[in-house]
């Protein structure tokens, strides 16, 4: 999996983001290979979401470099990110509540005919196709997404990320709003996408989710990366210690580990 000779799909080098005087992300470097899931964990305000917003173009970095396939790229807005095959499922889902599922799926990338008129039928057809794979029970193609359940809304957000042949997928708490059955569905989907060779950054509060799905885990603490570990080489307690105390596995004592279970 971590063949050093291979070029990473994504490399983020020395990324810095400050809000006012506060360093939300400080000199963070992180990478991702094709067909790999990298879990990104950390407490509230650790900088995970901000770091991913840099990659998705939602918030440009103050400094640092992003490489895709080893080539330097400039990502200053969400359109840039999408042209590089980076798709994002935001924690807030980023759906326009007042329009229907096909309109949301194609938001900013609408299909039109030769005259530039929206081709709603084609967009609905494509949406039905994606949904039949992601959520076969989905029926409400003509209703504003406001009236959909949390799970259905989530599947619209996921469909949007999956439909456009993403190479790099950022999932920010993709199961936070879901019930057990839907969560299992999303986990299956992540494994399936990984098998298709897509690189996935997975942000989650749920350490078990992350352990289950990730190949590597990067832990952030107060805007910095404490360390990136290979999942099979660490225990959940060690990762918890990194999250809570900001200490890498070597630095933490047995006593501190025991204290975690207080």
């Amino acid at each position, binding site marked *: 999996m971590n063949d050093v000779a291979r070029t990473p799909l994504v490399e983020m080098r020395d990324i810095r983001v400050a809000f006012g005087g506060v360093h939300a992300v400080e000199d963070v470097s992180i990478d991702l290979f094709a067909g790999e899931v990298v879990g990104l964990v950390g407490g509230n305000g650790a900088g995970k979401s901000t770091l991913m917003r840099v990659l998705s173009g939602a918030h440009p970095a103050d400094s640092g470099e992003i490489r895709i396939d080893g080539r330097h790229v400039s990502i200053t807005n969400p359109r840039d990110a999408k042209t590089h095959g980076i798709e994002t499922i935001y924690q807030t889902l980023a759906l326009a509540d007042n329009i229907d599922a096909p309109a949301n799926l194609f938001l900013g990338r609408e299909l039109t005919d030769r005259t530039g008129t929206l081709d709603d039928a084609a967009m609905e057809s494509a949406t039905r196709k994606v949904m039949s794979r992601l959520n076969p029970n989905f*029926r409400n193609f003509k209703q504003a997404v406001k009236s959909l359940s949390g799970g259905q809304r989530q599947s619209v957000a996921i469909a949007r990320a999956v439909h456009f042949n993403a190479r790099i997928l950022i999932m920010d708490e993709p199961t936070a709003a879901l019930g057990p059955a839907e969560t299992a569905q999303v986990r299956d989907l992540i494994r399936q996408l990984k098998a298709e060779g897509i690189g996935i950054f997975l942000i989650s509060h749920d350490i078990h989710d992350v352990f289950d799905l990730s190949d590597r885990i990067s832990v952030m603490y107060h805007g910095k990366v404490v360390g990136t570990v290979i999942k099979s080489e660490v225990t959940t307690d060690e990762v918890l210690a990194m999250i809570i105390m900001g200490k890498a596995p070597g630095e933490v004592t047995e006593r501190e580990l025991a204290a975690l279970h207080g």
Partner: protein
Amino acid sequence: MTEATSVRQRTSDTPPSRSIRTFLASTEIDTRLAGMIGALAVIWIGFHVMSGGLFLTPRNLWNLSVQSSSIAIMATGMVLIIVSRNIDLSVGSLLGFLGYTMAMVQAIWIPTTLGLGFEQPYTWIVALGVGIVLGAAIGGLQGFIVAYGGVPSFIVTLGGFLIWRGLIFRYAQGQTIAPMDATYSLIGGGPLGSLGDTGSWIVGAVAIVVLAWTVISSNRRRRAYGFPVRPTWAMATVIAAGSAAVLGFVWVANNYFWPPALATRYALERGITEPAGGLQIPTGIAYPVLILIGVTLVMTYLATRRRFGRYVYSIGGNPEAAELGGINVRRTIVRVYALMGILVAISAAVQTARLDAAVTNLGVQNELDVIAAAVIGGTSFAGGIGTVTGAVLGAVVMQSLRSGMVLLRFDSPTQDIVVGIVLVAAVGLDALLRRRSTR
């Protein structure tokens, strides 16, 4: 695919259901729109009865259509402004300013300043063009300050409200500019600025063909993809109802005849001997109403069938989602305001042409009527919700109330009180229904 076919089988041969709701659902008529048409019918019939049969006459309805057009034209743009979570308080003042400018072009600048003389064949189009370009530029400037300057639209357009009105007085020290170019005046309607009976029937026929074609082709597209489609009887109902409305409207317009004095003069000029009881010349659809119909079609197309409209609605629904979707939110806002400026210019032409003059209080309080029309038409101040046709109907509802109250000899303060109550009540009712439907 199996789901789609099963739905089609279920609906296609079902006879019209007893329930109005399922009936509307299968015809895909907007329930809110249907409700407004119902409310309008109640208002019309109510005034007709109370006025002793004066309201539902060709003469009154024809006047109503002309009086509604100027506000309705602007309301189609105000919908998009409000949908995008903004407001435009400057439209009344801007209308005055643009009307004045167009009047100056045709009454002073072309004939005197440039020395080209009055009544040139190009005068009307140059005046109109100047107004539209200036309207787009001013609207775009206001939108630019809102989108890129970060100044709330309420403030920017409140400033515009003061500035454009003030500039009118800089132009002409409060003088009235008159008269307008003869061709330009036709934009305002009146017996001469109307289509006449043959033209009106042709427009009606074209409208019916376009309506039928739109309904059938949209159904055919959906069927090609195997989606559930409207049953044939529902399509037929929609086309029949639409056609009846079109034909009824044309019939009414053609049954309003030229005023006798004008008809007599026309007869004299043409050397026609007037029959006993006078010459009956059908007026037909007035040009401003024709302009309104065109504007409504174009604006509906822009709002629902173009990326531009989709972006406006998504910005109103969730600005952050629009931005993350890669939409250039700021540029879209500038375009919405530029479009509003163009519509204000068109309305300014209608009003100055109708008055045959530009006066300093041109467009005063129009911003309130335009916003009220959009809101009565179901536009939500929360953003993201509203339709162009709803706003046009809202303008017609407002004008119906005013014109009905005039027939009942209500004085102007009473009219304002009633319109104010109706505005608040309409929005309150809408909010109530909306809350119930989401529950």
